[in-house]
């Protein structure tokens, strides 16, 4: 039964709606400026040799994660299934805050990346993508004579 005197998951629903709207509105992020919020949450960092992307995407099957890198644009998509009982079952759901359904996030990265040197690992619910920079783009020390 889904009826409750105190529909506590109303706020969770509102938050999710807001997040979904944000994803729709901010669909075209500019260079190094990404849409905030949404699933999965992303941390991006750089070293002189590579760009490291951490996507906080717990509870996924590695087979269902779709990663694509094209001209400095990385897209992460997939589907996350709900573990909660169906709405018509005897069980009741008190809180429903976790993301479920399809997700798709796009990152505009710099154009000095080497699409042939990408590694992706999924561990403890975090997807770590490491993309090497092209050798020519690495900062070089110039000797002054």
């Amino acid at each position, binding site marked *: 039964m889904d009826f409750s005197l105190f529909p506590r998951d109303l706020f969770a629903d509102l938050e999710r709606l807001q997040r979904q709207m944000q994803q729709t509105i901010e669909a075209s992020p500019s260079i190094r400026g990404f849409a905030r919020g949404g699933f999965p949450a992303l941390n*991006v*960092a750089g*070293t002189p040799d590579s760009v490291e992307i951490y996507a906080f995407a717990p509870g996924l099957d590695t087979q269902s994660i779709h990663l694509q890198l094209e001209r400095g644009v990385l897209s992460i998509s997939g589907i996350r299934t709900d573990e909660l009982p169906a709405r018509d079952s005897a*069980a009741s759901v008190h809180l*429903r805050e976790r993301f479920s359904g399809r997700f798709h996030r796009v990152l505009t990265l710099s154009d000095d990346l080497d699409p042939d040197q990408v590694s992706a690992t999924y561990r*403890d*619910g975090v997807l770590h993508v490491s993309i090497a920079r092209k050798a020519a783009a690495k900062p070089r020390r110039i000797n002054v004579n």
Partner: protein
Amino acid sequence: MTENKSTTRDSPATERPALVPPVDVAEDAGGITLYADLPGVARDRLDVHVDGDTLIIEAEMGLEMPQELQATHIEVSLPRYRRVFTLSRDLDAERLTAELKHGVLKVRLQKAEHAKPRRIKVQTG
């Protein structure tokens, strides 16, 4: 089970800021199942315990990051999670089970025997 937002009486860990993980809570005749998203947490950095009538979930992320890393975009800004719930008396805290898989914590709390729903027979007079 209700969420406990007061943080005054707890362990020193409360002093450190932590993320509030999103949870799903479902109840059936046998008990309550809670799912919490804790990405980046390995089993040895997770602490789930019951203190009196309070269920406390605390976890630390253990991300391996390369040296000389410079953050350019941060959405997850803290390396730990914490969330506290008040349990009702019909739940048996002794029979709590917790599983962690791919950063998702699943906690199962059984109902105490006396609190399980019983069908009451209606006698005809």
